[in-house]
């Protein structure tokens, strides 16, 4: 039995990925659940508008962190700020001193915090919840789950597909076939892209039809955000496959990229409730931006200007990640001739021949 124990430890020591999973994952869980796993939002960004804005702002409950006081603005500008996602709530004041609080229902936990805070400490203010009037969990979860499915197909399934080529020995065969590397890559990921797009349609269709999730924005804008997000997830999938020698390793690594995204993207726990250090971690995860875009477009009907920043960040992430993935995958796919063939080293060997020479 002792021999088995020693043998197992020896194998474990050489399986760096499994070791990382055993050590990093519990640490990650600890950090996440310690600092990020909270539904309690204490500071909700609020804008106060209207003639009595200055006065009302000073009387608001502590939960509402007044970011801007704009007496010159009215309800229309307040609603626009909510659609753009600039703040979670807008307090609209009138000359008579009456006030209404417009709350962004797409930010479920923040909206609940506002509603509870007002009811407890400023009952005179009227609360109106926009975009998700009943504060339905499904309304905020469906757009986020669509993102999770894109991560699952883009990263987990794609990495498995590429690793399968390597383990079956077909990747080497592809590298010497008369394919251009981009033909192989695009041909390989296009089916996953199509399936992910179909899944997205199904998830959103079911959400809208079965769970009455509102779709107030432009489908084309969501399609653009999804395409950029898929670029990132497919890139991560390719990267994972390029450093994995078998399916087990690919799944391990892909899950290690999936789990932090699910926990820290704001999909489950609100970003506003996370500790500042963890929140910055969330801002380098692509799902954070997709969740932002999908909720903004579907629930708030946000315009392209309102989601320009997450779209741009996804485009940058996509270019970097996909570019890295291409470079790494190219190493396996680009045949020697294309890299070394340039100068004919001797007499013309004829049209059928492909000579290549490398200087010692």
């Amino acid at each position, binding site marked *: 039995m002792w021999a088995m124990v020693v043998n197992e430890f020896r194998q474990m020591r050489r399986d760096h990925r499994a070791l990382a999973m055993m050590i990093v994952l519990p640490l990650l869980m600890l950090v996440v659940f310690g600092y990020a796993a909270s539904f309690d939002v204490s500071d909700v960004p609020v804008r106060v508008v209207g003639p009595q804005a200055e006065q009302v702002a000073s009387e608001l409950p502590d939960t509402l962190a007044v970011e801007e006081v704009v007496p010159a603005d009215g309800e229309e500008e307040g609603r626009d700020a909510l659609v753009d996602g600039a703040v979670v709530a807008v307090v609209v004041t009138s000359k008579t001193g009456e006030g209404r609080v417009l709350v962004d229902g797409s930010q479920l936990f923040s909206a609940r915090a506002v509603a509870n805070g007002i009811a407890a400490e400023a009952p005179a203010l009227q609360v109106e919840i926009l975009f998700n009037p009943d504060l339905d969990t499904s309304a905020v979860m469906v757009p986020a789950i669509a993102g999770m499915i894109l991560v699952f197909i883009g990263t987990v399934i794609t990495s498995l597909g590429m690793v399968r080529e390597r383990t079956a*020995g077909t990747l080497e*065969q592809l590298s*010497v076939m*008369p394919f251009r590397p981009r033909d192989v890559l695009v041909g390989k990921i296009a089916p996953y892209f199509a399936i992910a797009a179909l899944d997205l349609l199904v998830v959103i269709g079911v959400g809208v039809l079965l769970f009455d999730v509102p779709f107030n924005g432009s489908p084309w804008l969501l399609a653009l955000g999804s395409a950029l997000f898929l670029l990132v997830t497919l890139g991560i999938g390719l990267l994972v496959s390029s450093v994995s020698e078998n399916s087990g390793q690919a799944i391990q690594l892909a899950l290690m990229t999936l789990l932090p995204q699910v926990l820290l993207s704001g999909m489950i726990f609100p970003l506003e409730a996370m500790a500042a250090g963890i929140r910055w971690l969330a801002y380098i995860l692509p799902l954070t931006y997709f969740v932002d875009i999908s909720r903004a477009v579907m629930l708030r009907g946000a315009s392209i200007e309102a989601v320009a920043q997450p779209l741009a960040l996804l485009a940058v992430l996509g270019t970097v990640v996909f570019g890295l993935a291409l470079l790494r995958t190219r190493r396996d796919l680009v045949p020697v001739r294309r890299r070394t063939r340039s100068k004919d080293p001797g007499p013309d060997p004829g049209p059928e*021949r492909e*000579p290549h020479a*490398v200087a010692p």
Partner: protein
Amino acid sequence: MTFSLEAVVVRRHARTDLDHVDLAGRAGSLSAVVGGDGAGKTTLLRTLVGALTPSAGQITTPARERIGYVPASSGVYPDLSVAENLRFSAAAFGSRGEGRDMRTRELLAATGLTDARDRLAGNLSGGMRQKLAFACAMLHAPDLLVMDEPTTGLDPMSRSELWRLVSIALGSGTAAVFATTYVEEAARADHVLVLDRGRTLVSDAPAQVIRDLPGQVVSLPGATPEHPSWRRGRVRHAWIATGPPPSEARAVEPDLEDAVIVKALAARMASLPEPLR
């Protein structure tokens, strides 16, 4: 020449896998690359087909569209059927239409896979899978066919079938190169290249390799400390490098395997310091 490697060097991970190796073949010729594990056979073939970058040397091959490659792992898709694998290879090499269909039918018949055309490649026996890999590589009638240990793990019947198919390909003008650990298999080649730790040990026609054998090979009843010997079936063959053979020795007609072993022994002795030879 259909293909040639001249003074090819491959260095990877601070190790020289191929050290100034030459090999060439004309249309219809069969070249064998022989060597033990780690000798550099697969490296040579992968360099020839363009999957590896040589560190130095010159390689001349037909255009990529005119090369067929059978890797050691067979390189067929286990989740695709026999017919689907062939269709994919045809599409990859730009073969389509009636010509493709006819060629597919011919190859299926020649490899005996017609009845298995709808079976998944992953469910085929090793021999059938190797024949499918061969059919995929031959679908576009390449000028150069490169096979990495095509008969390893095959039963004698399947081996003989595969060589029959290779002979047909050679007859149609394809130059073929194959790697093998079986010296007796290399004897069928027009040219044999024996590699030892990335270096050329022997490179010639099999008959010439036997003719050039230094000293003589004899049969002995048992091992002797004076002469290096090796088992061949029920008897031992020994190499008499210089001088007369022992009295109990019987003369034998050396074959390629004897010649390769003698060359390896001679090279090893030459690399030893003078007093140890």
